[in-house]
């Protein structure tokens, strides 16, 4: 009798003799489901997955990288602790960055306000009320110079959450570095630059897919030649999950986006091994600890296969899925906000046990407002406690071999590949988005999830169970209402003092180039250096490319 057969026999015996009589006395709880809405088994055993160590898991730093992308992982050094921050004016954000670096943060992560993200100047009528709200307001290079004042750009790595206007902000960053005497080949960092998930989930798109994809491949090409240490894209599942997807959908749609970018780059003649090593990913760490760990492992294994089998990548680095993680903002509750510290701690564990390369932990008060300095510090301390005290960092991929984790890793991989196949049949991710398929799938999951909470099938502590009367939270961070005026004043002065003839001619040149096929990055760089504003640059491109109109499916 083989090992499996004997386990099977024992399992049957256990069910009959031990489990059934017990269940008769003490029935189980209901609604024990994973994020795809499927039942979680009572128990996982070797019967629940196909073991094939060398092929499916292998060793860290080796294909298919299930156990991690590096051979030593956190035994060498911890993940980068990177808190996303930015609000108000460039001066205020600059202060916050310096504070965070002093607190032991190891990388910067810049949040921009919505007008900056969508390419409007602070004085544009549509910017009203939004200036400096969800991030820092950047109109011209002048703001960017203030933002990084006294921060040596050859020493820090900077991640910028910027998508539709990523080319402009990257150009500004390069220009600021140059002014500090740091050449482009020395700077390190990441731009999000992932437009597809903006159409799906986040909403800060500007142009239609085609010209957007062109801008992205322009950046790939430009950076491979001039900014070699820059991560040119952070392919993001984070927002897809925030929009309400399941864990498997998060992986599926993120990797499908990744495939689309690779195809676009290969189509323009780039060699996969030249740019693939600079691709990075960005995932969500949700509450279901074990499902999340399995998700990260499945994603790594899948991407390695996709790169090797689909794109014929040769270099190991091209096949490694390196990722940033942020704890799930949507799980934070406005009720009893201190409970969020605990949620974030669990999510931090998920990210670390899943092998993340960098991590942002949310602050307890983010369901109420932008986080205060105190809250941000606690969030950072949470990472430090997991790193230094929890012990989970001492060995690599410590949950591997758990029957549940391995079965779940396989399940997520299977579900996600099914989605990817379906999307391929539709003609790829752009077609699937334009047809509303991806949005509809996510919305259906989100609706189901929310209805479970409404019905009490899913318990959120403090929200639909264990509620209590509580006084309003005090001391929330308020963004100064006068910031728009300050920013508008500043912009006015810049526009008066710069060389407007030059600005006009560079913008004209940009317009002409946009109509053709050349790489737009050099001219955008030229434009920011003469202090053309983000609104002027983006509007020039809008004139040529047009604007995307969302496809609503409900």
């Amino acid at each position, binding site marked *: 009798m083989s090992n499996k057969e004997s386990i099977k026999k024992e399992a049957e015996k256990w069910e009959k003799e031990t489990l059934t009589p017990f269940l008769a006395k003490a029935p189980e709880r209901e609604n024990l489901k994973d994020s795809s809405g499927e039942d979680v088994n009572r128990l996982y055993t070797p019967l629940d997955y196909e073991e094939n160590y060398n092929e499916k898991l292998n060793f860290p730093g080796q294909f298919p990288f299930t156990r991690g992308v590096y051979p030593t992982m956190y035994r060498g050094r911890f993940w980068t602790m990177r808190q996303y921050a930015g609000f108000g004016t460039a001066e205020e954000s600059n202060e916050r960055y310096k504070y965070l670096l002093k607190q032991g943060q190891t990388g910067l992560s810049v949040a921009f306000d919505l007008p900056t993200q969508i390419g409007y100047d602070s004085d544009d009528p549509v910017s009203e009320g939004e200036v400096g709200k969800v991030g820092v307001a950047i109109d011209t290079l002048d703001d960017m110079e203030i933002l990084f004042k006294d921060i040596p750009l050859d020493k820090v790595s900077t991640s910028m959450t910027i998508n539709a206007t990523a080319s402009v902000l990257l150009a500004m960053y390069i220009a600021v570095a140059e002014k500090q005497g740091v050449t482009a080949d020395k700077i390190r960092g990441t731009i999000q630059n992932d437009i597809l998930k903006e159409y799906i989930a986040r909403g800060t798109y500007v142009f239609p897919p085609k010209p957007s994809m062109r801008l992205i491949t322009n950046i790939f090409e430009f950076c491979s030649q001039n900014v070699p240490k820059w991560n040119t894209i952070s392919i993001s599942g984070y927002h897809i999950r925030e929009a309400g997807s399941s864990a498997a959908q998060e992986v599926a749609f993120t990797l499908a986006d990744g495939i689309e970018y690779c195809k676009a780059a290969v189509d323009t003649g780039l060699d996969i091994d030249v740019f693939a090593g600079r691709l990075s990913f960005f995932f969500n760490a949700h509450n279901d600890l074990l499902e999340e760990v399995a998700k990260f492992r499945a994603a790594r294994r899948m991407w390695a296969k996709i790169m090797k089998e689909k794109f014929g990548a040769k270099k190991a680095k091209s096949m490694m899925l390196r990722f940033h993680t942020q704890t799930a903002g949507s799980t934070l509750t406005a009720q009893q906000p201190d409970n969020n510290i605990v949620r974030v701690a669990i999510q931090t564990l998920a990210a670390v046990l899943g092998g993340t390369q960098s991590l942002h932990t949310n602050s307890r008060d983010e369901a109420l407002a932008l986080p205060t300095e105190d809250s941000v510090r606690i969030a950072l301390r949470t990472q430090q406690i997991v790193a230094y005290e929890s012990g989970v960092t001492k060995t690599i991929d410590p949950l591997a071999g758990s029957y549940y984790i391995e079965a779940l890793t396989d399940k997520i991989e299977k579900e996600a590949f099914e989605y990817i196949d379906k999307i391929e049949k539709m003609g790829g991710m752009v077609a699937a988005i334009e047809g509303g398929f991806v949005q509809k799938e996510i919305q259906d999951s989100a609706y189901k999830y929310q209805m479970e909470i409404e019905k009490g099938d899913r318990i959120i502590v403090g929200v639909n169970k264990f509620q209590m009367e509580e006084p309003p939270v005090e001391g929330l961070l308020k963004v100064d209402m006068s910031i728009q005026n300050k920013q508008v004043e500043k912009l006015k002065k810049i526009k008066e003092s710069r060389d407007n003839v030059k600005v006009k001619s560079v913008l004209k040149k940009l317009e002409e180039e946009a109509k053709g096929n050349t790489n737009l990055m050099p001219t955008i760089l030229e434009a920011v250096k003469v202090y053309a504003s983000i609104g002027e640059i983006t509007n020039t491109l809008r004139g040529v490319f047009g604007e995307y*109109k969302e496809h*609503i499916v409900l």
Partner: protein
Amino acid sequence: MKKISEISEKIIQGDIRAIARGISLVENGGEEGEELLKNLYVEGRSYILGITGPPGAGKSSLINLLIDKFKEHFNKVAVLAIDPSSPFTGGAILGDRIRMQTHTGDPNVYIRSMASRGHLGGIAGATKDAIKVVSAGGYDLVIVETVGVGQSEIDVVKLADTTVLVLVPGLGDEIQAMKSGIMEIGDLFVINKSDKPESEKLATTVRWIVDEHYKDSEYKPPIIPTSVYKNEGIGDAVRDIIKHKEYIYRTGIHTNKIKLRIKDDINSLLERKLNDFIQKHIKYPEKIEKWVEQVYRGESTPFEIIKSIHENLIIDVKEEI
């Protein structure tokens, strides 16, 4: 705006709020709606364009672009966009409007989303009444966008002067079209998404069917390729729509259509009045169960029951209808 007479007056002056409220009143039915229609009754004053076709054909986006061009031919444009109501809850999500939202601030364009409210046939039951409201409000072009569910699109033909069928490649329309005889409802055929390679094949198929169907007819429906994405072919569509308009006005087809609609109005009003009358005098709702029971037990037959109703009806009909 409480009084119906006041609303009627404002509608005639073109007041948007009153027009919007008026449509709600006729949608909700009942006495107020009827009162309003009594004040406003018009037929044939506006040119009515029906836009139909399967979901995903790009009807709303097409209308969005058509509106710009129609402004050269009409003073005021109203769009009634119909979406389906949920058969279970009666609720609806009305989302067509988003594709036309650029026209929202335009005082000469009025856009109204309507839920089908259980009415089959691709339009809402109150569509023809809503048309009267905007017509009275001075909109000389009324565009009706149907739900777009396959074969139940026939109703729009009755209330529109010109019906445009929008088709796109890839939705299985070719087969659909031939099977359902849907070709008979289009005065024009728009093949949208002409940027897609398969669209030419679809156009050829449609051409073939249309030529066959209209071989003895003076009017041959044009087939117009458009691309909403590239903003192409929109001018052609408008030109051919206007041509059809001129054709039906010239040949008297339009007059016949109007007379048919008036006949329809008389019929449905009469039907409703008779129905009200039955409800009131025969006390149908309270009695029907009793009658069923009697027939079931073999104590009576449907014929005997109708006979007894007849015998007991002694009223002055003139007073009632």
